[in-house]
């Protein structure tokens, strides 16, 4: 299934993260190693407090790791310290993030919530608007393009948020429990969508989830326990998923 030539878009080597010091020290991540090639959707599972969010935030350059290396889209980003000065620009260009809650800006309508990140990346107002509408159509919420976030249903808002995460065609998409507020039918639709995006945009997608119902939608599953990645025995590559 992993074609030769597909390079890892996300590479994590010996990554560790601890909070606090002394007796209050919490080792949230211990010696994490993982690689996600482009076109793949991988799951990150584990009990509460096992470090899933912490790992995702480190990969999103929101949280500074305590040690190890992080390479995103072929660029070394972290090697015991940040290697990039402008992490926000890096996020804008390379990373799309889907929150557990849609986190749309309440004062912008659906279109502008997507257009704003295009605009931040330097696209002109008209082009940003046009592209945003195209994305909403692609996610099948085009009919709600003028709605304010407060008027959107949970599923619609989540798809607008996904459109925003996709807008700058990031190579890396990180999602923290994106299906938690959705019913299982909607959750499947979103997962299929992510799969399509992974292939269309040759992106690497990492999804934190508790939802056992969508396990078959992943190319690979990583399981965390007490800050360590479990060996691959428990995770399985789904056999019958057609791309």
């Amino acid at each position, binding site marked *: 299934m992993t074609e030769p030539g597909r390079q890892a878009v996300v590479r994590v080597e010996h990554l560790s993260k601890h909070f606090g010091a002394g007796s209050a020290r919490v080792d949230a991540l211990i010696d994490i190693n993982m690689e996600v090639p482009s076109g793949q959707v991988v799951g990150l599972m584990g009990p509460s407090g096992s470090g899933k*969010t912490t790992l995702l*935030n480190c990969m*999103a350059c*929101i*949280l500074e790791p305590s040690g190890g290396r992080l390479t995103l889209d072929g660029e070394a980003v972290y090697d015991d310290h940040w290697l990039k000065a402008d992490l*926000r*620009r*890096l*996020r*804008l*260009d390379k990373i799309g*993030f889907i*929150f*557990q*809650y849609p*986190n*749309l*800006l*309440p*004062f*912008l309508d659906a279109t*502008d919530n997507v*257009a*704003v*990140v295009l*605009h*931040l*990346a330097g696209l002109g*107002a008209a082009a*940003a608007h046009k592209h945003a509408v195209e994305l909403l159509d692609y996610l099948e919420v085009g009919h709600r393009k003028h709605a*304010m976030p407060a008027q959107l249903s949970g599923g619609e808002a989540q798809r607008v948020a996904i459109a*925003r995460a996709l807008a700058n065609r990031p190579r890396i998409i990180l999602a*923290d429990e994106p299906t938690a507020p959705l019913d299982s039918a909607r959750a499947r639709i979103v997962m299929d969508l992510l799969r399509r995006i992974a292939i269309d945009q040759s992106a690497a997608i990492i999804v934190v989830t508790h939802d056992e119902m969508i396990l078959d939608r992943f190319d690979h599953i990583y399981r965390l326990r007490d800050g360590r990645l479990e060996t691959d025995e428990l995770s399985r590559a789904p056999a019958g998923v057609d791309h």
Partner: protein
Amino acid sequence: MNLAYRDIKHNLLRFVLTNFGLSLLLGIVIMMTGVYGGLIDDALRQARAANADLWVVEAGTNGPFAESSRIPGDTRELVSRVYGVQRAGSVTYQSVQTELNGAPHRLFLIGFEPGRPGGPRQLSAGRDILRGHYEMIVDRSAGLELGQEVMLGTRDHKFSVVGLMRSEVTSSGDPVAYITLRDAQALQFELAPPASRREQARGGSMETNDQINAVIAKVSPYVPVAETAAALSRWKHLTALTQVQQETLLSKFVIEKARKQQLLIMVLLIIVSAVIIALIIYTMTMDKVRSIATLKFVGAPDRTIIGLIVQQSLSLGITGYVAGLALVFIFRPFFPRRLVFDPESVMAVFAITIVVCLAASTLGIRLALKVDPAEALSAAG
């Protein structure tokens, strides 16, 4: 895409209400500059109304407004004979309080010699004083009408209003009234009947009352005023002040306390406005913490976020200022004192508003810059 404008539009009602409050506050600040301008203007009018070149007052005093000045009644003849003096007139000044329709009424009485310098400049209605006694010309702000009679003095003489003027008030806002010098002297120095009887019993005399407060002199255009002033000052009991000196005395020293008080009120109001603007900006930023965290998360640079706050702060200040200015001009006719606006001070208030807004937004900016992008991850708020 302007985020500041979008957020304002989204919360329009709150913005409008906040703005209304702010416009009242800024309106009061603007009004205070008008009161301040009015104070100086009234003071100067008082000096200019006399249309003098030189003021001859008691030696060593800054009379007749800044300090009391008393000189003998025959000084005017002395002054008239000095080289360069074209015309001269004696004047007295006094504040009186009388009752009209049961309400207390303050007037600033100027006694003058009809036909000589020191009288009213321009009438808006009625005629000049023609009879030697009991006629008066008064500013319209006193609320008197032509033909109306007013009781003045301890002997209850009735003065009838024969002429009206406009915008002749003192620096404390009291309307000015002109009467003849003789009437004024009588009012100023005559005692009420019981006091008078007592004075006579002690052997005092009532006939030494020919005193005045100042002589107003017009100088020939062919003679330098300074030269005439120097000549006048040779009399040991007199001091001559030029019109410029008199205006400086009035606009600087006489109203010094009132000026300082208003300046202080203005400074306090500006501080209050600054605190309120800062609080508004701060709470507006607080309400947006989650949006700011999300913006940072998706990659917005600090300049976008600072721009958002500064633009909102400025639009709050600018619209508040404009609305305040409009309110002041709408309610100007109902204000008890004259409001005089000069463009410089109106612009100065605008500049101060802008500076205050920028300063106030630093509080919001500090908060916004401290927002952790990870806050966007916390449970929906």
